[in-house]
């Protein structure tokens, strides 16, 4: 419990204090930490972002990382550990560059998430929470990720891969293992898990085009709007990354780019939200 296997038999002795970061790393992280702490009226509020920050340094939350957070915030390492172990996004062991999370909460599970998760375990030869030998992919099942209208959903480094099938999910992890640039259905071209953790610490993604990548909204988000505008009854959507037929199109197209011209706009008096607007003026 208190020792790793390489340290031999546990004698029930407590850990020695964790080693500190090298001076240059510590100086860099301290500068970042000051920026994070300045966002809050009370420094302890910075603990969750700081844990994301130390995760961006080493790919998981280490004892060194927790010691750093404790020292910056004037907490005990026990207080920091209590928090770090409560939240599921903090990884406690070395893991892959790409975290592949298959939603297996009820709706996604029923729609195919269970089948996808099982297939990926076979395909990659790893179980839940395990990492491929090359250190590329960590596979896990996740809870509802607020994308049920795109079920079944797979998240990679917390970017959305919507409307997945067993085949599309296998192609996805093959691409990740092969080192190909992979683009999500909603979100920016994938960066590594460490880079993602830095965004979570509150440092904006500075890559060109990252914010606008994948367009304004996913197709399901627009279905009601299209109907309200009197556009043709929505066709049954067969998603490019899904589909029984293996059309190998990694870049899902948004329906908005090839739909029929819109005959009303929100500013048009014929638009349902339009005419009443003047009443309250």
């Amino acid at each position, binding site marked *: 419990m208190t020792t790793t296997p390489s340290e031999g038999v546990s004698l029930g002795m407590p850990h020695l204090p964790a080693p500190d970061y090298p001076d240059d790393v510590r100086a860099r992280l301290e500068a970042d930490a000051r920026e994070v702490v300045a966002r809050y009226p009370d420094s302890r509020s910075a603990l969750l972002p700081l844990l994301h920050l130390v995760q961006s340094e080493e790919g998981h939350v280490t004892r060194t990382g927790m010691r750093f957070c404790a020292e910056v915030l004037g907490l005990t390492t026990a207080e920091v550990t209590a928090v770090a172990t409560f939240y599921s996004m903090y990884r406690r062991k070395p893991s892959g560059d790409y975290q592949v999370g298959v939603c297996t909460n*009820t709706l996604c599970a029923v729609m195919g998430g269970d089948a996808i998760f099982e297939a990926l375990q076979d395909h990659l030869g790893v179980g839940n929470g395990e990492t491929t030998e090359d250190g590329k992919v960590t596979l896990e099942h996740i809870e509802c990720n607020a994308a049920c209208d795109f079920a079944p959903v797979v998240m990679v480094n917390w970017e959305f891969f919507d409307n997945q099938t067993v085949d599309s999910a296998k192609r996805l992890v093959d691409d990740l293992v092969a080192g190909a640039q992979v683009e999500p259905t909603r979100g920016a071209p994938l960066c590594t898990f460490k880079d993602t953790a830095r965004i979570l610490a509150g440092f904006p993604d500075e890559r060109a085009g990252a914010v606008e990548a994948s367009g304004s909204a996913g197709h399901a988000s627009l279905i009601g*709007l299209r109907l309200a*505008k009197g556009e043709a009854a929505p066709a049954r959507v067969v998603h490019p990354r899904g589909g029984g037929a293996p059309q190998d199109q990694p870049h899902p197209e948004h329906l908005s780019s090839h739909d029929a011209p819109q005959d009303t706009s929100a500013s048009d008096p014929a638009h349902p939200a339009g005419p009443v607007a003047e009443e309250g003026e």
Partner: protein
Amino acid sequence: MTLSTQYGSTSQPEAGGESSPEKLLAPVLSAFWDEEKSWTLDVYRRHDGYEGLRKALAMSPDDLIAYVKESGLRGRGGAGFPTGMKWQFIPQGDGKPHYLVVNADESEPGTCKDIPLLFANPHSLIEGMVIACYAIRSSHAFIYLRGEVVPVLRRLHEAVREAYEAGYLGENILGSGLDLQLTVHAGAGAYICGEETALLDSLEGRRGQPRLRPPFPAVAGLYACPTVVNNVESIASVPAILHKGKEWFRSMGSEKSPGFTLYSLSGHVANPGQYEAPLGITLRQLLDMSGGMRPGHRLKFWTPGGSSTPMFTDEHLDVPLDYEGVGAAGSMLGTKALQCFDETTCVVRAVTRWTEFYAHESCGKCTPCREGTYWLVQLLRDIEAGKGLMSDLDKLNDIADNINGKSFCALGDGAASPIFSSLKYFREEYEQHITGRGCPFDPAKSTAWADRTEVNA
């Protein structure tokens, strides 16, 4: 429309029932999501963005609170508490800092409205926050966004940057004298943080565990100071109310549930997605306009507002989806997450999985929830695997009864909901699992692609 027979066994709604989507839907927050770069300040301004703020700043804060109260806006995060009243509870002149915290920890199974809203239209939230902070006299606001949605976090970072640059955030906003700092805070994966007091503990850098109430957050919230905690959609609805008027808002929905809202249709339906409509639309109307259930299948059970709201069946297709209508039918409007399952779905499997979720997410603070959800999972797994006993069904009900209303927070009540409601409507299906020594359903038939090969072959 005549599609109804496809998914329901109940009688048709009264003749003359309006079913044209143009008349039934009312896109407000979603009105321009189909435009290029809809999330930018430019596009938001082209759609009257930050006009509501100008009107708000011309009022006194107390008049503004009264105005939002009179609009009848109710919380869109599940409980339906009147938003203006929450603001009014903040004590004024108490000499303490006041805080606004937006709950963007959308994690209730089935719920998927705030995430697309923030992805496509983050400025509606920011404008609403500035208005709310002016009303409650707050100079520091927070967005607590669940961590697992990095694409949304990116756009929030960018939208906040744009808002500062344009003078909608920062010092002396639009010359009003209002100073406001806005912090975007990413969570780290814990459903319980959607509970408002757990969220506050989490935002203070602690384990996300609920607090005993009273004191309520309005009196002792973040850093023990008066705090308003509102859902994303509630706050994002405020600018339109100010800009277009409370009468306009009240012209939609019903007397007690006025206004528009986002309904999220998911599961075995022909066209899952977001449908923004006046409160009180029915599932039958939504299905009629959107193509019904997937071809060849019938609606079996559905949730009106996420897994924590008691499930409905095809008997409830004509229940008005507003706070009173759903409540009168024995459930809760919740988050309007309409998860629809067809006849291929095993209800025992569905409930087992939801219960595993609650057991996993129980924070461990109180015994009924921590222990109760654990034992529910043991019993349900046995039943699903054909190893259950008939007496287990009463035991399930009994344990759920010992969680419901006896837990520290609403997570426990939510865990009991699917148990009670599924036993009420589908007890026979549980019995089949026990007498038949296993699950009679083929999970392959309920997948999204189950019927696709037949079509393609």
